[in-house]
C-alpha cells in the first residue's frame, strides 16, 4: 500500500516537473511575441472601428498616430480625418493612346503614399502590351528598357474603385468598405491581415505590409489622412484611395500631377461640366474585365 503510494507521489512529482519544464520552454519559444505585446498598448489593442469612433475618440487616435510616426520614423507628420463631400462621385479615366509607360505615376504614388522604400512599392502597376492585342498574358509589368518601345502600348493598372467590389464582400471583419464618394478604403487599424481581399481582387490592386515599411525621415510625406497615406502598420492590407487626402479637398491625385503626357483625367462624375464627363461622352471608353461584373470607376480610352 505504502509502496504504491510512494509510486504515485513519485509519478506526480515527475509529471509536475515535466509540466513546469514544458511551460517554461513554451514561454521561451513565444518570447518574441511578448516583446510585440509590450509595444502594443492597451489603447491600440482595444481601438474601435473607424466608423464607430466618436470625433473625440478619433482625435485621440490621430494624435497617437502622429506620436508613433515621430517615435518610429523620426518624422513630424500631420494626420487628418478627411470625410467625403456631398454631391461628389469620383471617377478616373486614362488615355492609352498617349501613355508612354514612363511610370512616373507609379513613382509619384510611391512617394505620396509613404510606401516602403526597400520594395519600391506602388499602388500602380504598368503593363507593356503588344499592339493589336488585348491579351494581358502577353503583357509585361517588369520591363526595364527605354520607353516607349515600337509596337508596344502601355496600360497602367491601379485600384478600379469598383461599384461592386469583391474585396469588400469577402472581408470577414468589415475592415474595408466603399465610401459615399465611391472610394474603397481600409481601416488599417482594424484589418486582421487575412489577405482574403487580395485573393478576391481581379486587378492586383491590393498590397500587403509583409513587414513594417522603411522610409527615411526626410522622405516621409507629412500630409497624411487616417484612411489614406499615413504610414501603414506591419501585417495589414492597403490600397489606392484616389489620394483622398488631396482629392477630397479639391486637389488632383499625385499620379495625375506626375503624368508628363496628360494621359490621366480625374474628376466628379456628377459634375456635367467636368473633363471626365466629357471623356465618357465623347471617347470610346471601356473597363477592365467587365465580364466579372465589378463595375469599375476607372475607365480606359483610345484617341482613335
Amino acid at each position, binding site marked *: 500500500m505504502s509502496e504504491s503510494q510512494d509510486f504515485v507521489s513519485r*509519478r506526480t512529482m515527475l*509529471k509536475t516537473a*515535466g509540466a513546469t519544464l*514544458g511551460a517554461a*520552454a*513554451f514561454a*521561451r*519559444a*513565444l*518570447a*518574441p*511575441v511578448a*516583446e*510585440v*505585446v509590450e509595444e502594443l498598448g492597451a489603447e491600440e*489593442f482595444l481601438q474601435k*472601428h473607424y466608423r464607430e469612433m466618436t470625433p473625440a475618440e478619433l482625435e485621440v487616435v490621430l494624435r497617437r498616430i502622429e506620436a508613433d510616426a515621430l517615435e518610429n520614423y523620426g518624422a513630424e507628420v500631420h494626420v487628418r480625418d478627411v470625410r467625403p463631400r456631398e454631391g461628389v462621385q469620383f471617377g478616373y479615366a486614362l488615355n492609352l493612346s498617349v501613355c508612354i509607360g514612363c511610370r512616373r505615376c507609379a513613382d509619384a504614388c510611391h512617394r505620396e503614399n509613404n510606401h516602403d522604400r526597400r520594395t519600391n512599392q506602388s499602388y500602380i*502597376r504598368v*503593363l507593356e502590351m503588344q499592339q493589336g492585342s488585348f*491579351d*494581358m*498574358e502577353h*503583357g509585361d509589368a*517588369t520591363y526595364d528598357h527605354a520607353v516607349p518601345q515600337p509596337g508596344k502600348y502601355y496600360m497602367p*493598372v491601379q485600384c478600379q474603385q469598383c461599384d461592386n467590389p*469583391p474585396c469588400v*464582400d*469577402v*472581408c*470577414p*471583419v*468589415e*475592415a474595408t468598405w466603399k465610401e459615399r464618394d465611391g472610394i474603397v478604403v481600409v481601416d488599417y487599424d*482594424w*484589418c*486582421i*491581415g*487575412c*489577405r*482574403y481581399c487580395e*485573393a478576391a*481582387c*481581379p*486587378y*492586383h490592386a*491590393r*498590397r*500587403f*505590409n*509583409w*513587414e*513594417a515599411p522603411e522610409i527615411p525621415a526626410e522622405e516621409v510625406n507629412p500630409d497624411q489622412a487616417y484612411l489614406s497615406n499615413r504610414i501603414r*502598420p506591419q*501585417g*495589414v*492590407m492597403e490600397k489606392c484611395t484616389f489620394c483622398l487626402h488631396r482629392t477630397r479637398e479639391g486637389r488632383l491625385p499625385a499620379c495625375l500631377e506626375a503624368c508628363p503626357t496628360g494621359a490621366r483625367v480625374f474628376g466628379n462624375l456628377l459634375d456635367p461640366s467636368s473633363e471626365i464627363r466629357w471623356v465618357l461622352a465623347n471617347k470610346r471608353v471601356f473597363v477592365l*474585365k467587365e465580364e*466579372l*461584373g*465589378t463595375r469599375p470607376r476607372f475607365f480606359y480610352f483610345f484617341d482613335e
Partner: protein
Amino acid sequence: MQTKADSHWVSYPRFLARALWSATDGGVTFYAWMTGLTAIALVGAHAWATQVAQGMALTGMSDHVSWGLYIANFTFVVGLAAGGVMMVIPAYLYRDHDMHDVVIVGELLAIAALIMALLFVVVDLGRPDRFWHLIPLIGRFHWPISMLTWDVVVLNGYLLINLHICGYLVYMRYLGRTPDPRWYVPFVMISIAWAISVHTVTAFLYGGLGGRPFWNTALLAPRFLASAFVTGPAFLVLLLQIVRRVTTFRVPESPIRTLIAVMRVTVLVNLFMVFAEVFTAFYTGGAHATAARYLYFGMHGATGLVPWIWSAVALNLFGAVVLLVPALTRRTALLDVALVGIFVGVWIEKGMGLIIPGFIPSTLHEIVEYVPSLIEWRVTAGIWALGLMVLTIALKVALPWMQTAPAHSHDG
C-alpha cells in the same frame, strides 16, 4: 433528482482530473512519442512567434501569391475533419454494430483536425492580436456576406458538436452509466450534415472568387467532399491498425473493411473529378487553361509545381489500383503503403496543387512563383505535431473508458 444534479458538480471535476492523469500517464514509448511531438511543436511555436514579431516577409508569400503553405494545409485538414464522418454514417445511419464500437475514433480525429485547421488560419493572419475583431457581437462579423465568417461558424460549430458527443459519451462511461440517446443521437445526426457543410463552405471560400478562374468552378465543392472522403478513411484505417497494435482496445476487422469499401468508390470519384477539370481546361485551352498549364507542365520556364502535382497523380493512381484489386488489398503492408500514398497525394493535390495555381498567373497575368520558407515549414510541422498530440491524448483518455462499456448498450 436533486442529488443526481448535485453530484455532477463533484464528479465532473473528478472526471477531468482523472482524464488529465491518464492523459499524462504511460510507458516509455508514450513518453518518447509525446516528448518528440512537444519538441516539434515548440520549434513551430518559436517560428510563429518570430514571424509575428518580424513580419510575414519571413514567409515565401508575396502580393502575387498571397496564400501559401498555411492555407494549403488548412484546406486539407478541414477535409480530414469532414472525412471522420465516414465512420459516423455507417455506425448511426446503417446501425453497423462493429463500427459503433470504434466510431469515437473518427469523432476524436475530427476534433484534432479542427484544432489544426483553426491554428492554420491563426498563423496565416498578419495581425493575430486583432483576432477579436472576428468575434460576433464584440467585433464586426461580416455575416452573411463574407464566406470566411461562414467558415468561422461552421468550423467552430463542428468542433463544439464533436466535443459534446465525445465528452458526453466518455463522461457517461466514467460514471458507469448508459448514455441517454436523447443527449447525443440528435447531435450525431446534426454532425453528419454539418460535416458536409464544413467542407462545402471551405470550397465556396475559393470557388466564389470570380477573379480566380482556377477556383471559380462549381465542381470545387464536390471535389472537396470526394477528396475528404478519401483522406478521412485512409487516415482512420491506418489509425485503427496502430490503435490495435499499441493499445488493448479491441478493434474489429469489419470497420476497416467498411472504410476500405468507402474508399474504393471515393478514390475513383475524386480521380474522375480531377480528370473532368483537366479535360475542360486543356480541351478549351486559352486563358482558362493557363493556371492548369502552369500546374501540370510549367510556363515560361516556371515549373515550381510540376514535380509536386505529378507525384500526387502517381500516388493517387497507385493507391486506386491497390484498393481496386482485392488480392492486393488483403496484403496489409501493401495496403498501408497505398493508404499513406493516397493521403500524401491528396495533401499535395488539395493543398499546394489547389491553392498556389489560383495565384499563378496573377490577375494581371504575371508569373511569380512561390516556395515556402523554412519558417513556414517549421510552423506547419509544429501544428501537425500539436494535432497528433491532441489526437494521442484524446484517444488515450477515451479508449480505455469506451472499452469498459457493455457492448451495444448505447445503440441509438
